[in-house]
């Protein structure tokens, strides 16, 4: 039987393409050596974590996605801190779990944890500018098609609610609409919407839950950005709201997402509902030992 297409393959290609464009066209402050370091560290941590968690085989895809995301987002003068961030990022997948799901998007957690802990790493949300916006959008939408809307509801709900909040704010302040439009024309925003908040492993299981989560993250991002005046409001918002996902799952139970073949198993046994993992899934692993 033909193996279903894994959307992570597209994600890896898209992120690698964006990184190549960023380095060649936008002079990102990330060297080839830094890219190598981040990817190698992420993969090594995945390998070690997988061994410790006794995963049956080494799967580099999630670690590659996290590593490439770090290449796009993480900035620091220190190679040690760069490697440290990659370790924290991947290790969080294995260490911070709740009912078989990791709590935080790994890249999101790694970045925020290191920003808080070291004050020597940063994220440059302005690095994309707005000139590349359209090309960017195409790449991201392409990902959505490939995903076959697997979890694009969270992305769409987030973009819609974030955009609505920006326009509402502009209307309230009497600002020209060019301001919220400019705020939406952001490469950093698209990266967040298509590659971070959309992470099916850290979003609620049900569609209603995901939409609620997306709206909350958008509102939190606006609050951090325009009330607290902190940059990277969306990263802070997502990391702050991720612990609420188990609660949302309790309120709106749904099917747990699994990568290969997008097979689903119920998150929790529900009365009167039979549930069994599909064949291409690993045997049900004990708590804390599912694939990342």
């Amino acid at each position, binding site marked *: 039987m033909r193996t279903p297409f894994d959307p992570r393959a597209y994600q890896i290609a898209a992120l690698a393409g964006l990184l190549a464009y960023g380095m060649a066209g936008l002079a990102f402050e990330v060297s080839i050596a830094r890219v190598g370091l981040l990817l190698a560290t992420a993969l090594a941590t995945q390998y070690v974590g997988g061994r410790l968690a006794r995963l049956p085989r080494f799967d580099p895809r999630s670690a590659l996605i996290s590593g490439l995301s770090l290449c796009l987002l993480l900035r*620091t003068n220190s190679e040690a801190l760069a490697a440290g961030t990659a370790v924290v990022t991947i290790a969080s997948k294995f260490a911070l779990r709740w009912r078989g799901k990791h709590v935080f998007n790994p890249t999101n957690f790694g970045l925020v944890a290191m920003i808080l802990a070291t004050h020597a790493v940063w994220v*440059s*949300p302005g690095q994309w*500018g707005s000139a590349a916006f359209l090309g960017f959008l195409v790449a991201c939408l392409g990902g959505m098609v490939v995903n076959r809307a697997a979890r694009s509801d969270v992305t769409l709900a987030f973009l819609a609610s974030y955009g609505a909040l920006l326009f509402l704010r502009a209307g309230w*302040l*009497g*600002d020209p609409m060019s301001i919220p*439009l400019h705020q939406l024309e952001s490469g950093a925003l698209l990266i967040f919407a298509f590659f971070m908040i959309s992470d099916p492993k850290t979003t609620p299981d049900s569609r209603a839950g995901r939409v609620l989560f997306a709206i909350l993250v958008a509102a939190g991002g606006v609050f951090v950005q325009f009330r607290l005046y902190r940059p990277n409001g969306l990263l802070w918002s997502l990391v702050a709201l991720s612990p609420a996902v188990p609660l949302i799952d309790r309120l709106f139970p749904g099917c747990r997402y699994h990568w290969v073949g997008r097979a689903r198993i119920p998150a929790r046994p529900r009365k009167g509902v039979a549930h069994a993992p599909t064949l291409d899934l690993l045997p049900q692993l004990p708590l804390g030992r599912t694939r990342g």
Partner: protein
Amino acid sequence: MRRLSICCLSFLLAGPAAERAQAFCGFYVAKADTKLFNQASSVALVRDGDQTVMTMANDYQGDLKEFAIVIPVPTFIKREQIEVTDRALLDHLDAYSSPRLVEYFDPDPCQRMEVGGVLGGAPMARSAAPHRADEKSLGVTVEARYTVGEYDILILSAQESGGLETWLKENGYKVPPESPKFMLPVRLGTVNAKGPQELFVYALTRKGRVETTNYRTVRLPTGMDIPVFVKNEFGRFYKAVFSDQVRREDMRAVFLEYAWDMGWCDPCAAQPLSREELKSLGVAWTAGAPGQVTPSRRPAMVGGAGDVFLTRLHVRYDASHFPEDLVFQETADRTNFQGRFVLRHPWQGGETCDATREYRRALVDRREKEAQTLAWLTGWDINEIRGKMGNLAKISETTDRRSWRSLLSPF
């Protein structure tokens, strides 16, 4: 939570300095300072944690009675927090951080075999005409009024920018209709500005470089070899470089011209600011005796104060390309960066040896490359540049004519 508290606000009016220093990174020749640009505003932002001290200077031409500068501040500020300061402070910052031209002299090829290679509200004037009763209805409140130096200062608060615009219009201040949104402190300029404006931001921070979060911050080209004749027209050259970069970025970027630890410089377009000067700008965190150099720094230059990182940003903006006010963030990046252009004077000695011919050959290539670099940087016509560079033979008439002719023969 209040994120930004402006504890000192300094208004300056109009505003010169040039030194020559020799240093490791070439012999300093000239700089391209802010006076090259018309309609330029300069602002120094001293940022420490959540506290910001801002010093501003505007290039305003016209009747002073009509000059007003509007600066929305995020929190109420008191009279003691506003002072008029000396324009020389910003001039010194400008001189210290300007893009610079340096020169090298090729060694005698007979002594060394290598050639080329890159080494590495002002007078819110008679303002406040009689207060109108509908200020409140416009949502505008005059919180306080002061006279500081020669300026009358009103502290206004407004819930909405539209109300503030109406208030300004009714009180005799024109606000251009294309800019109904009111400006944040970083988006300086008079409310009546015509055409694109230049803004220079000097950010003095503890941690590292400052960048914009809602626009790209782009490093200007640096370290490039350009033809020697540029020495006489460096100002014109730099204006062309900047304009060309603005064009390439579709006028949607903020440009980094300088990022350096204030403890030193190399080469120095001007000495670093002293502790006293930094203190006047609002730097409260430097320790040690006045003028003391941090011992761990390179001993190249004197007079600076450690622990202060200077970022110089240059932006050309108008309402359509910069719809949103600039938003900054301080990064932990302490990588030094300077706008620096290099002149290389050919060896003009008369000695001949085997290496001379090789040197001449490389020199022809080098000069062509310099011409192309200059054309790329400025958009100037390549043939005009070649013409201005003159004939290499004329430059080195004293050299061995026989080897020179053999060099030219392939052409």
